[in-house]
């Protein structure tokens, strides 16, 4: 089931109407059942995998809780890591490793008789695996007590708003909410509905209208002009942002309707004044996960400078690989790692400011930094979106040649960049708020006018061709 289908709206209404009639345990059971239906709507065959993965971690965490022997605790954690990463590795990376190995042997002049499997990637596997890992690791670190209610645990793993594409929640944040009585809060629910509306706008009006333009240029990378590829790259930058942050807004808003608060995942990343800041604003929950469970265990900041830089680079490369089994994602991660480390050297680093105070005035220097940061991010997006590394270089070369020859034109006529401008203006004006439609302080007529304008834009201009959320493939 996808957020942008009428089926989901019906599902949501039924869930909402039933949910608030029940007590806490009933609510958890309803979320459990609803999440199963939500997931099975896509492919019921992978429900077993989801339940198995969740079941292993539930049992392992219970064993970790009861055991004090460090050796046995390490062994139990090893079981959790092996099962989670094993499942993820098989479904997501098996063919990549086999293919890469065969390619390597061939390039060494050896014949490789390998075969790959036709493996379907289970929806949301990268997200729920990471979430499950965070639980067992936190229990292992004794930062969290294992829960004894399997329903509560499954709800944490598979809570339908966020199970497919996040935001990735830490157990310390979300799991505990399932153990408490939820109270319906009108202002929270209203804010959730507002955030969902903005998410739908970003996904259906901006991202989905940009998608055909991006596909057209990137699927003909060798014949498209440099100008077309440049505009398609800019279009992709906004497509992926509006697609993914749109999903996140819908997920967070939807969770609020049920009395849950999910962690923020985006904080207007394209207004970042440097790459370091960009990573504090883009896919925040994944960055946090990697910091907590990879960067710090690698030594974090408490090691020699060269080792710290190596750790940062490793985190970025792994983060790229997390997105998909393709060298293009590794290149994307590597590029960001390089930019991140090079930033202090080239003087792009912005003055440190709290993200919550970003409504402060931006100086001309800040605007310039935003522009340069955006160009660097777009440069990396080329590899993220390209079919292969060589295709990425072809695109880069064609854009470079067009720039050098002064053959760059404006955006294509009738392109949906107008909606990008609308989105950017609204988000710029609202950048001090948690989401762009956080207008609760406005008077009701103005507020409702804003809602109706957004609804009208969706009804009149949303792309009706079904385009799946980009992050579903990860």
């Amino acid at each position, binding site marked *: 089931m996808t957020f942008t289908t*009428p089926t989901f709206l019906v599902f949501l209404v039924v869930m909402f*109407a039933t949910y*608030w009639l029940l*007590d806490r345990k009933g609510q958890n059971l309803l979320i459990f059942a609803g999440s199963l239906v939500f997931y099975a709507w896509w492919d019921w065959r992978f429900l077993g995998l989801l339940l198995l993965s969740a079941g292993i971690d539930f049992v392992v965490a219970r064993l970790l809780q009861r055991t004090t022997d460090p050796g046995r605790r390490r062994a139990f954690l090893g079981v959790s890591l092996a099962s989670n990463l094993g499942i993820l590795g098989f479904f997501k990376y098996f063919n990549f490793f086999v293919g890469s190995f065969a390619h390597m042997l061939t390039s060494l002049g050896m014949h490789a008789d390998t075969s790959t499997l036709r493996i379907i990637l289970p929806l949301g596997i990268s997200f729920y695996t990471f979430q499950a890992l965070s639980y067992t690791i936190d229990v292992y670190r004794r930062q969290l007590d294992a829960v004894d209610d399997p329903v509560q645990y499954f709800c944490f793993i598979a809570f339908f708003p966020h199970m497919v594409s996040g935001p990735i929640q830490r157990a310390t944040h979300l799991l505990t909410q399932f153990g408490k009585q939820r*109270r319906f809060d*009108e202002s929270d629910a209203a804010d959730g509905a507002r955030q969902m509306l903005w998410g739908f706008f970003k996904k259906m009006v901006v991202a989905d209208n940009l998608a055909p333009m991006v596909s057209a240029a990137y699927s003909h990378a060798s014949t498209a002009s440099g100008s077309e590829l440049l505009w398609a790259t800019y279009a992709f930058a906004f497509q992926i942002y509006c697609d993914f942050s749109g999903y996140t807004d819908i997920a967070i808003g939807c969770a609020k309707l049920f009395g849950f608060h999910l962690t923020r995942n985006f904080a207007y990343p394209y207004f970042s004044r440097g790459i370091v800041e960009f990573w504090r604003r883009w896919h925040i929950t994944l960055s946090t996960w990697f910091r907590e469970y990879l960067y710090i265990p690698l030594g974090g900041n408490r090691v020699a400078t060269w080792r710290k830089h190596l750790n940062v680079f490793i985190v970025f490369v792994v983060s790229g690989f997390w997105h998909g089994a393709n060298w293009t994602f590794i290149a994307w991660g590597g590029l960001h790692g390089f930019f991140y480390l090079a930033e202090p050297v080239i003087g792009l680093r912005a003055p440190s400011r709290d993200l919550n105070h970003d409504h402060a005035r931006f100086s001309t220097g800040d605007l310039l930094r935003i522009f340069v940061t955006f160009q660097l991010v777009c440069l990396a997006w080329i590899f993220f979106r390209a079919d292969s590394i060589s295709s990425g270089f072809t695109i880069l070369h064609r854009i470079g040649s067009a720039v050098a020859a002064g053959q760059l034109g404006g955006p294509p006529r009738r392109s949906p960049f107008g909606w990008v401008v609308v989105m950017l203006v609204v988000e710029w004006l609202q950048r001090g708020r948690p989401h762009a439609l956080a207008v609760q302080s406005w008077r009701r007529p103005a507020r*409702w006018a804003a809602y109706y304008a957004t*609804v009208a834009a969706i*009804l009149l201009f949303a792309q*009706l061709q079904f385009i799946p959320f980009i992050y579903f493939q990860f």
Partner: protein
Amino acid sequence: MATESGLLPGVPPLAPAVLVDDVVQRGAERAVHSQRALVLRWSLLLLLFWTPVLILATAFELLLWRTGESWTISRVLDVQRRDPGRLFLRRYLDQGLYRYKFLGMLERRPAILALGSSRVMRFRAPMFGDSANFYNAGGLIQNLDDLESFVRLTPDTAMPRVIILGIDMWWLNDNDRSPEGLTSGIAFDGASSWKSQLLTAREMLMTRGALVGAIAAVSPRTGAGDGIGLAARERGEGFRSDGSLTSARRPPENADWHFVDRENPIIPDRIRQGIDRFEPAPALSLARLARLRNVLTTLQRRGVLILGFNPPFSADGAAALESDPRQRELWREYRTGVPALFTELGLPFVDASTTGALGLDDRYMSDGFHAEETFHLYLLRRFAADPRVAAALPGMGAAVERAIASSKTDYWYADFPGR
């Protein structure tokens, strides 16, 4: 519930445990009730917000329904069966041509079927005699894939005895990549699709005068017809119950008339640009010709007599095909290879690829590659000269001659009851 009485506000310190439990219970119930009241209040506010949108959507749906634009294809066929005089043509909602024609054919189980693209839509039931069981499935076949699907999907019980098959040049062009649409098209009805309804609403809102026109089309004062669908009501044109298409445009009348190609872009330009079904090709595709042969022999085995013809191009269109080196060979082989195939299989064929081939001119065409009703009379007259056809369609010759001889038959419309 074990509770220390003094801890609860409003409960006397020495109250019995039972009373305390009662108070706690009532408090919890009150909390639940107030919670539900909050949810209800908020839901009502949400409903209030959506009410204007729902009212507008309902009003729009009612308007579409009144015009017949949003009737399902099944309902349209049902109404046309009961009232054969009513035309059907949607204007904004997806036309559902595949479904309309295929279900119409299955329902009527015709003995004679006109089959092909929009270029065969002008054959009419009266052309085959008064009691002919005829159906026009023009528009059902856009390419060879559709034709193969048609043969596969049509049950023996609905397979006609005679098929008049208009074969378009692009069916035999390897560079024509038009997709098969029949299988999914049969299953799809825009009237049952929220996406189609939304697209219709958008188009009507963006088209100047569309909503006013729709309101006028259902107003008794404007005297709009009883057609089904906005185009049928507003323009008085559409599909008759026999599947044939009628238009409301006026035919050429006076001496200073000159041909106007209403296609956009006009056919000669499409040929020169090599677009929209005129993708350049070095020659006729032998593979596709073999597939056509397979279809024909399959139909023959199922007891069908197939009458083949090449639908016509205007003089400008034909000249463009002759003169363009990227089209010339395909055009030549199309006009020789297809008739040769029919001859080889012992099937009747008439080359009607230009109006001149039947001794006519562009006055019989409504655009660069669509001939009108009267042209088809002359085409059938050619077929009637073939004894195999005359035997299979005994009423056709006389009906055609009568219509051609009538002074009421003009360049476009034949003298048959009910235009």
